[in-house]
């Protein structure tokens, strides 16, 4: 199911393994003491509607560029050692992985801050769009919280 963990920024159709991504990040330094990860998954309910499926589309190259900018800024501003960001596109079933952010640092505090900042920033600046399939049909989600 999982693909190569070589690149720290990836947008891909395939699922990923959280364990594999964490192990890949551990190789960056022997001085990692804290690893915070955020994993976004497909929820069944959205604004009271039952979701049957999600579908993500992205603007190729621009989306990857924005994720790399987020990674660089997280390392620079939050004193973490490194970060990886993976976002899936295409069809996503309920319960499936959508997005993963892994922040590794010497201590836990900065990895929490960096990880929480990065997912908020991803939602704000990355050209990725979600389409929800409900019993009423398909709709592009337009809200960015």
């Amino acid at each position, binding site marked *: 199911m999982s693909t190569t963990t070589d690149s720290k920024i990836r947008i891909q159709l395939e699922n990923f393994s959280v364990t594999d991504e964490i192990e890949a990040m551990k190789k960056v330094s022997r001085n990692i003491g804290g690893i915070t990860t955020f994993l*976004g*998954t*497909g929820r069944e309910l959205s604004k009271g509607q039952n979701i049957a499926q999600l579908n*993500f*589309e*992205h*603007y190729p*190259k*621009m*989306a990857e*560029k924005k994720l790399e900018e987020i990674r660089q800024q997280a390392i620079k501003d939050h004193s973490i050692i490194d970060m990886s960001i993976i*976002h899936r596109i295409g069809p996503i079933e309920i319960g499936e992985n*959508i*997005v993963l952010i892994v922040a590794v640092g010497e201590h836990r505090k900065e990895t929490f801050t960096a990880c929480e900042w990065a*997912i908020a920033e*991803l*939602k*704000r*600046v*990355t*050209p*990725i*769009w*979600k*389409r929800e399939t409900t019993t009423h049909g398909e709709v*592009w*989600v*337009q*809200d*960015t919280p």
Partner: protein
Amino acid sequence: MITVKFFASLKAIAEKEEEQIEVQSSISMDQLSDIISKTSPKMGDIIRDNKIMISVNQEMADADTVIHDGDEVAFLPPFSGGS
């Protein structure tokens, strides 16, 4: 020639994903929306109403950004990635 891209909900409105527009050296964002309006009036309205974001060569742009021959312009509805 500039390349114009439409994403997500805008594909249905523009009734296309991409178009090529022939230009002389450079045009303003207003001139570009006039050209797009001719084939898709609804898309032109959306651009003029500032309801969407625009990128030029994959960097965020605004109404004052000048578009040059060879540029890639994209119309981007509000993002909703991240879960």
